[in-house]
């Protein structure tokens, strides 16, 4: 290299100007940049003050907190304050519907089981998260349905419920083993029985026997329980809303994936069936589908068979949600470049390997906002089941205003119900944003 070449030295970085960073910089830049901006800020602050003030006055400062009827409330403050006692009296019904009061603990335990099932998904050292999630979808409903429904159970039913309980035990055994020992529960069991060096077949047998032992214990526990039957017509309130939307949400994702793949399939029969299904259920309002299933389905069933009304509503919601989800997923599938399929093909992967390992993980990740948006929509759409006479959260709120003591009390219950809806929807939304950030971390440009 010749010696007379000049050496290039990049200029050092200088700090950014002070007034463009930090809190003060942000306020100056965004709120008080120039005169119109300052005026808008003041106007906005004023509107916020008026609205929030009015709501607080109505909901808290002028509200009546104890009374025996709506008349007493009206005599005390008129319409300038909320009348909360009506909501308090009915609150338990808003949450549990007409479920017998001495059995309500079963609902609580049932949902506690769901929470327990989900907690390991947030534990940082747990690696088997996919398996835990799948087990929640496949096994939790078995356990929950017995807690919620109760009644007689034959041998098969007992075994299924016990499978649910086994699932929960497995989830926590896995979570604890992976958190504290850093190995999967299967490996831990094999190691602690001194079979770490045994061959693969023998280890597999040991794992199966251990699972069987837990299952038998679960069977014994379940068969010692006996819950009175609570028929679904007593279900209601937030509980019913969660049951319908929970099943709808859980069903819609896998069903939507299958329909979306089906619609893009090369096999004409499958493609046609999927397209027909999607277009049919997407083109009809949910209310109509609910009516159809509620009134017409029994006509097509053989005489004497009776399909539970709640079940009819759930099936209707599931099919509707699956059709919508299918189109969202299809959008995600279309965003995957052709090169990804070609690379997978060229590597010799099969259709299902390509779909499950290459295409879906990417498609679902892009579609998280849309998918969760759909979940939120579905959660709120379940209010429509009130039309066929189910007492979901919304219908229960309406019932308060029809109680003779609280005649005409509609605003307060609806206010509370919207708060409940907001809490759930906002939680879903925040979770999806968190999930997006987590999945995007370190993988994007």
């Amino acid at each position: 290299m010749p010696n007379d070449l000049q050496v290039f030295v990049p200029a050092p970085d200088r700090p950014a100007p002070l007034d463009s960073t930090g809190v003060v910089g942000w306020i100056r830049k965004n709120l008080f940049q120039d005169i119109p901006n300052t005026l808008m800020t003041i106007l906005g602050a004023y509107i916020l003050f008026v609205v929030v003030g009015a709501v607080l006055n109505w909901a808290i400062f002028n509200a009546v907190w104890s009374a025996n009827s709506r008349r007493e409330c009206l005599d005390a403050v008129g319409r300038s304050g909320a009348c909360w006692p009506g909501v308090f009296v009915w609150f338990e019904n808003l949450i549990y519907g007409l479920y017998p009061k001495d059995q309500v603990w079963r609902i609580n335990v049932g949902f506690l089981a769901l929470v327990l099932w989900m907690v390991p998904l947030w534990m940082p050292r747990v690696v088997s998260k996919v398996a835990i999630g799948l087990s929640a979808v496949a096994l939790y409903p078995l356990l929950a349905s017995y807690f919620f429904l109760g009644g007689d159970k034959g041998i098969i039913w007992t075994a299924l419920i016990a499978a649910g309980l086994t699932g929960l035990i497995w989830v926590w055994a896995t979570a604890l083993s992976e958190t504290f020992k850093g190995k999967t529960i299967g490996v831990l069991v094999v190691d602690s029985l001194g079979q770490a060096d045994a061959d693969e077949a023998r280890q597999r047998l040991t794992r199966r026997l251990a699972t069987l032992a837990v299952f038998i214990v679960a069977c014994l526990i379940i068969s010692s329980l006996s819950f009175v039957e609570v028929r679904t017509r007593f279900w209601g309130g937030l509980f019913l809303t969660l049951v319908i939307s929970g099943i709808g949400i859980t069903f819609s994702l896998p069903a939507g994936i299958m329909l979306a793949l089906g619609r893009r399939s090369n096999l004409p029969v499958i493609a046609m069936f999927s397209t027909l299904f999607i277009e049919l259920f997407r083109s009809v309002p949910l209310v109509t589908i609910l009516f159809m299933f509620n009134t017409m389905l029994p006509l097509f069933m053989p005489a004497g068979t009776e399909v539970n009304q709640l079940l009819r509503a759930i099936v209707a919601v599931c099919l509707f949600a699956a059709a919508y989800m299918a189109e969202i997923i299809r959008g995600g599938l279309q965003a995957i470049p052709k090169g990804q399929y070609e690379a997978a093909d060229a590597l010799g992967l099969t259709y299902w390997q390509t779909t499950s390992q290459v295409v879906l993980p990417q498609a679902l990740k892009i579609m998280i906002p849309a998918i969760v948006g759909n979940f939120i929509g579905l959660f709120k759409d379940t209010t429509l089941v009130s039309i066929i006479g189910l007492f979901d959260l919304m219908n229960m709120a309406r019932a308060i205003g029809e109680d003779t003591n609280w005649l005409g009390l509609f605003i307060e219950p609806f206010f509370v119900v919207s708060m409940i809806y907001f809490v759930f929807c906002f939680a879903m939304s925040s979770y999806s944003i968190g999930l997006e950030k987590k999945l995007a971390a370190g993988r994007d440009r």
Partner: protein
Amino acid sequence: MTKPGRMIEIVKLNKWFGQFHVLKDVSLSVREGEKFIICGPSGSGKSTLIRCINQLETHQEGSIVVDGVEVDPKGRNHREVRSRIGMVFQNFNLFPHLSVLDNCTLTPRLGLEMPKAEAEEIAMTHLSRVGIAEQALKYPLQLSGGQQQRVAIARALCVKPKIMLFDEPTSALDPEMIKEVLDVMVELAEGGMTMICVTHEMGFARQVADKVIFMDQGEIVETNEPNAFFSNPRFDRSADFLSHIL
């Protein structure tokens, strides 16, 4: 059946896209360890030809025999054919949601049902060979184009192919990165791999190629030794093409 030592035997291959006749009576024979460079103007059918070999495109007439296996255009033995062939694309086509290492181990683990540890060991061997071992846990989009293409080569090698196909592997790269990819390809060629490479990197062609194929309008115009082809093309069409790219 092929004669011993014949890796790829293509006879009178014809393909149409709708009414458009992309490949016209293409015949080609590649022996084990030979390196073929395919060049030609865009739209001449170069990519389509090599994509037919591993059946990313299906052909309508003629026959392709890969390592003794007759390729079925209806797709009944795609996986058998593809397990013998590694392919590298112009746009890398790495899986962005998987780490570099997982990109390499995906097929061995799923397709060949190899235990994870063994698959990772093989993957690391190939990643070190292309000089990316220390980036194994990064994700593809965190790497430069040249590094991504080298990962793509390593990924293809993990399937233990007997033949490597390259579809314009350096066309999407910045000039500074072309060399690092070509170096890997030269090393691969020197290791005795059978290679068919669509490229306009003529320096590379001179260095490694046994044969240069010039295609135009869906036909093989000229097949020649690289030095003869570059210094003394037989057809006016080849000479015209060379005058534009050299």
